[in-house]
């Protein structure tokens, strides 16, 4: 029997990436609130640290004019008009302010000659409503995310945030439309802890591990998403999953868009700059979905390098100095993992699963909303696991980091406000009962015959890569649906090896595997349902965008193991949908 520990806080933050820490710092700054941060990884291990290229803010530091309205327009266009314009307006208007705030927290941005925050070009970011590329991405060499994560963690220490490191949340206490806390596994001991709270924010990051080739960490398993889904909260726009065009071949390790921002060029087997064909205006700096599709098309036409499933990212014309100073990490990756020098050789790349535009539906303060737009009291979501929706059908590079800090801050403020007016709501008998049963059952399979979780993951990842990635068809998706159902059944029969309690990652891996299969199913279901092509969701059997029928968000809720789908209108305030060409 597992022993149970109990804690009570005003506010709880689940996840210590950029968004979670931003919320935590803001909660801590409010003073009297008791706040705890729960994270299954040490905070600085969070995946925000891998973000390379930059954070978008219309500062206009590079001697070019820039306005947040232009940023707003680019984001909306990038989202293929599915993004909610009220939320996008909030994000783009607040982003300069938040970037300055990060600088005031000590974040070591790279600098311009006159000492201001340096900025670079990024895909889809333009001046004057789409005219020409603009330098909008504020960066700290090519470790912007690392510096954001470090800076926010430092600030958390400064403000005495209370951390529960290596605590994995395994259940949410959502009852009668309100969230009253969470149950977490203390990984180091294998014991369960009940955390009661007035407000709880999920900041658990993405779920890229569902795909085979991915830029995401092995720990990005979408826990927050399947946890809320299991408690009857819908997930929004799950069919929109971004494939980043330039992942290192086979490994999926990301090569930042900053490389193209600095002048890198994509080339096919013949050495041709093929993006001229697909995006005559912005070329290699078109938005990510466009570039990923172009690469797939080149590969299909037999123009991949040596006819294989990859193309080249050519950075040789940047020169050694730009590469060593502005892209040192990238150079290091190439040397370490590929044994090539990007100064003299092109980098072999292929699209890699990267970012979830969809997620837990929220309002502009991070408050989670249900199927009918009703708020789930005390429950918030921010960062990649949330869907505000500012990214719509396709996220622009640099906008995720903006999303993290802008909405992390807003959620922190809103939660503090909420906590002051709210009381702790009671939880039912034995709140940890469900988790205990689930985990004990899994533990009791140790050493018995059963399915291997790693094998199930492998099959799921391959399936999703082949059938539910850049190009989709009814046939592929239907096939995936059937196979995923099989995998889900097999996942019920997982048997683990490790019978011990302390640090049983075999147990948590298995638990995460089940959740990921559920997310793969929801994603596939939503992709099958949306019969149009928009942003990252590209249906070959429905190649056009269909505003008449599909200018709306999908909401999927799981009931008795099957997804039910509903819809939500898109907020359109300033920019009417137009055809999207780059």
């Amino acid at each position: 029997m597992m022993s149970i520990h109990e804690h009570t806080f005003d506010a709880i933050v689940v996840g210590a990436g950029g968004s979670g820490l931003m919320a935590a710092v803001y909660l801590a700054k409010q003073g009297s609130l008791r706040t705890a941060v729960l994270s299954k990884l040490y905070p600085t291990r969070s995946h925000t640290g891998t973000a390379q290229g930059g954070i978008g803010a219309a500062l206009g530091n590079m001697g070019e004019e820039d306005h947040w309205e232009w940023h707003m327009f680019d984001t909306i266009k990038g989202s293929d008009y599915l993004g909610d314009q009220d939320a996008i307006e909030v994000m783009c208007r607040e982003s300069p302010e938040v970037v300055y705030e990060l600088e005031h927290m000590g974040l070591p941005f790279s600098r311009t000659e006159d000492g201001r925050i340096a900025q670079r070009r990024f895909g889809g970011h333009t001046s004057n409503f789409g005219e020409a590329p603009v330098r909008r991405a504020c960066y700290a060499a090519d470790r912007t995310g690392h510096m954001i994560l470090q800076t926010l963690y430092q600030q958390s220490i400064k403000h005495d945030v209370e951390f529960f490191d290596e605590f994995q949340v395994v259940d949410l206490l959502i009852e009668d439309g309100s969230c009253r806390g969470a149950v977490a596994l203390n990984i180091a001991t294998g014991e369960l802890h009940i955390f009661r709270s007035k407000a709880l924010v999920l900041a658990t990051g993405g779920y890229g591990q569902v795909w085979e080739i991915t830029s995401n960490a092995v720990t990005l398993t979408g826990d927050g998403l399947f946890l809320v889904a299991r408690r009857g909260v819908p997930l929004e726009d799950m069919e929109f999953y971004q494939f980043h065009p330039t992942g290192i071949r086979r490994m999926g390790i990301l090569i930042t868009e900053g490389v193209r921002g600095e002048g890198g060029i994509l080339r096919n087997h013949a050495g041709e700059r093929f993006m001229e064909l697909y995006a005559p205006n912005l070329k290699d700096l078109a938005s990510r979905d466009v570039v990923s599709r172009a690469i797939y098309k080149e590969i299909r036409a037999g123009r991949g390098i040596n006819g294989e499933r990859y193309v080249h990212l050519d950075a040789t014309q940047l020169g050694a100095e730009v590469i060593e100073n502005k892209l040192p990490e990238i150079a290091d990756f190439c040397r370490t993992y590929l044994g090539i020098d990007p100064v003299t050789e092109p980098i072999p790349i292929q699209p890699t699963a990267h970012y979830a535009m969809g997620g837990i539906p929220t309002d502009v303060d991070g408050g989670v909303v249900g199927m009918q737009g009703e708020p789930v009291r005390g429950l918030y979501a921010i960062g990649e696991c949330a869907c505000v929706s500012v990214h719509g059908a396709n996220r622009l590079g640099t906008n995720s980091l903006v999303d993290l800090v802008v909405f992390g801050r807003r959620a922190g403020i809103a939660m503090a406000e909420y906590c002051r007016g709210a009381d702790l709501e009671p939880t039912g008998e034995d709140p940890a009962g469900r988790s205990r049963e689930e985990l004990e059952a899994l533990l009791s399979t140790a050493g018995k015959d059963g399915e291997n979780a790693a094998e199930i993951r492998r099959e799921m990842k391959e399936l999703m890569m082949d059938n539910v990635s850049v190009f989709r068809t009814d046939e592929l998706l239907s096939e995936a649906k059937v196979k995923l159902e099989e995998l889900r059944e097999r996942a019920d029969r997982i048997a683990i090896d490790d019978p011990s309690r302390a640090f049983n990652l075999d147990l948590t891996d298995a638990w995460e595997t089940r959740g990921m299969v559920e997310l793969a199913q929801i994603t596939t279901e939503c992709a099958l349902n949306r019969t149009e092509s928009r942003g990252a969701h590209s249906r070959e059997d429905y190649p056009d965008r269909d505003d008449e029928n599909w200018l709306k968000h999908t909401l999927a809720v799981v009931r008795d193991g099957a997804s039910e789908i509903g819809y939500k209108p898109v907020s359109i305030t300033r920019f009417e949908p137009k055809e999207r060409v780059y």
Partner: protein
Amino acid sequence: MRVLFKVYRYQPETREDAYFDSFEFDAEPTDRVLDGLNHIKWHLDGTLTLRRSCQHGICGSDALRINGVNRLACKVLIGDVGSKIKIEPLMGFTVIKDLVVDMDRFFSHYRSVMPYFVNDEAPPDRERLQSVEARDAYDDTTKCILCAACTTSCPSAWSNPDFIGPAAIVQAHRFIFDDRDEGSEERLAALGQRDGVWRCRTVFNCTRACPKEIQITKAIGEVKKAIVADRS
């Protein structure tokens, strides 16, 4: 290629002593050592326990002793270390299970150097200005991912757990040499203590171990000089 992994095991719940386990299997020379360990965990023995996350040398989870030296398992290719690979946990920390060590002391040393930006003046409306050169002065030490490879490679830290260790000094350096920061006096005072920088005997193991190739010994030297200059 055929590889033989010799892996340190410690499973306190089932067996009292620590021991080495051998696993032999086929791997590509371009596989990471972490891929090998994952292969073991996923297909040969699910009880093998280690921390890992990003798999490309950014998160700092999987610093281990690989063939005698500290490395990130995800930043060394099997082909580069040969077909016999010995994996041990970081030295100097208590082992919790297999390759997982207790990092509490490491983070407590980290916290002791005030690893955060201090400047109590009201900030300007926009960014504080900083010249390119001033930014360069601490660029190197901003790269630290807190993997602990350095501190656990340092003989001074092995024998003396109170030594705050190179990682904490690197973190302090990042602020001391940031001209926007104003907390350095306190930081230098903390680092000037018995268990601060002076415990560094310039062994250089740390610099060799750092996966981010931070010039740690140089950074420590700069801090030492700053303390001496501060006092005179």
